[in-house]
């Protein structure tokens, strides 16, 4: 393959897209700050634009992170995990949970994922797993982790002491990208919300790390992390890094 540096350019701006960036200097910095470009596309395809601030972690204990791959954004999570120096492993069957240090449950459709959990005793096995092993849920993954689900009520693993309302911010047309300060150091966090659920209640042991208006959107309870937005679709690896730190901490504890 003949590739040179010019090919590394990730963000070719297209001459045939009519929107000019200068006209959009309103609130939403991320969505407005760039001319319409293929930046997001390139991110999806290569993962190379992720700038992991984690050179030291790659030299630490190697981690294997399971990504529940029944359906949904598992590929984007796996790519982000890989870019941070850990090894992703796709989980489609209960036996795939063996040998992983932590698990990511991605966005997608929680109803679809539940259908798969009905077979092979997967639901019970996964329930045991998430009650004891570091798990990070995004969007539909949060719905699976939650103690209570509304709109409509549905079965869940009941590990994280929160109540989640499905599709609570509206349909796709209401999906949005926001930037906000959070407890994670390093400046505002980019949050991609897609048909997002809303956390309407958090238990006493649940720490809120980031919010959207009054709603918690990134929370932690012990070994569990949950984001109603999609850090795997952004350019900011800090949420995944936080999860890897949790996994590493857990692994150290177990010896």
């Amino acid at each position: 393959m003949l590739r040179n540096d010019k090919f590394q350019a990730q963000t070719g701006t297209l001459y045939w897209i009519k929107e000019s960036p200068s006209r959009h200097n309103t609130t939403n910095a991320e969505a407005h700050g760039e001319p319409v470009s293929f930046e997001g596309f390139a991110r999806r395809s290569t993962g190379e634009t992720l700038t992991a601030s984690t050179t030291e972690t790659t030299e630490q204990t190697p981690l294997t992170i399971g990504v529940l791959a029944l359906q949904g954004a598992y590929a984007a999570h796996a790519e982000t995990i890989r870019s941070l120096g850990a090894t992703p492993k796709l989980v489609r069957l209960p036996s795939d949970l063996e040998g992983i240090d932590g698990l990511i449950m991605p966005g997608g459709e929680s109803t679809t994922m539940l259908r798969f959990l009905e077979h092979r005793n997967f639901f019970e096995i996964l329930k045991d797993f998430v009650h004891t092993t570091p798990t990070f849920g995004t969007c539909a993954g949060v719905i699976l982790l939650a103690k209570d689900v509304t709109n409509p009520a549905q079965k869940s693993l009941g590990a994280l002491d929160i109540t989640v309302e499905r599709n609570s911010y509206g349909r796709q047309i209401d999906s949005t990208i926001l930037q906000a300060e959070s407890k994670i150091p390093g400046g505002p966090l980019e949050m991609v919300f897609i048909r997002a659920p809303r956390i309407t209640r958090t238990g006493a042991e649940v720490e809120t790390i980031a919010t959207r208006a009054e709603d918690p959107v990134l929370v932690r309870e012990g070994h569990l992390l949950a984001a109603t937005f999609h850090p795997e679709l952004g350019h900011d690896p800090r949420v995944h890094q936080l999860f890897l730190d949790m996994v590493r901490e857990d692994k150290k504890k177990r010896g």
Partner: protein
Amino acid sequence: MADHTSNGNLASSSLRLKTGLAEMLKGGVIMDVMNVEQARIAEEAGATSVMALERVPAMIRAEGGVARMANPKLIKEIIEAVSVPVMAKARIGHFAEAQVLQELGVDFIDESEVLTPADEVYHIDKHAFSTPFVCGARNLGEACRRIAEGAAMIRTKGEAGTGDVVHAVQHMRQIAREMKALTVLDESELYNAAKVHQAPYELIRIIAKTGKLPVPNFSAGGIATPADAALMMQLGAEAVFVGSGIFMKERATPLDVENDPKERAEAVSRAKAIVIATTHYNDPKIVAEASEQVTGTMKGLAAAALEESQLLQTRGW
């Protein structure tokens, strides 16, 4: 809205949000449904999304006439009935139908060759909408042109309404082959490649670098069995659309899922099995188990027996 003159709301029309929803649908099955009961069956069976329409392609093919956007009343009922994303089809170039679909709160618009085209030259300017679009393609050039117009997802066209997977395979293989060929070209050869594919140079350059489309690439058009779904996934599809394969009995007769429990059970068995085979496409044992559960299959129509004028895939360019 779909205001073609103002700069619109870029926050919600950003390509990342649009392709983001497509990412959420990966590894799943999007099912054509013609009424609320079918939509419920699809959701129960594990469909990631439903496509609301009045006649599935097999019926359009059998009955003829002009095929248009579904009645908004039907679309609203289906939106009310299920919690998964709802898609609907607009005719090629019919941006007013697309405006209506966006207004209704449809989550994805399919600018589809299955409906009768409304414009013989122009496809819809999909950048003008906040709602994401999916478009069909038979080759890389067609896919790139649709992406350039703002499509957030590409699907193979296949030959809808036949239950014959041969053209979906042909289109998926062709797109894969053409992408692979770009990755070995010298930089100076890419300008000509853009010309050959009649596609924007910038897109050709990105594909040459990554070896894949810059938006999710799904498969549609003739997928009727669990093994068909597994085949398309192994050929590189990131998810599948199943149109007539689940709810059709004879060429123009759907299963009566509303009144006949036996026919309802048949539809459920097909829907469930295709969902399982799509996730476990690499595991023949599970595909076999899933296929065993299926009672009955859409009768189908060999695509090779169709006259050129009967093909839906040649609509759009």
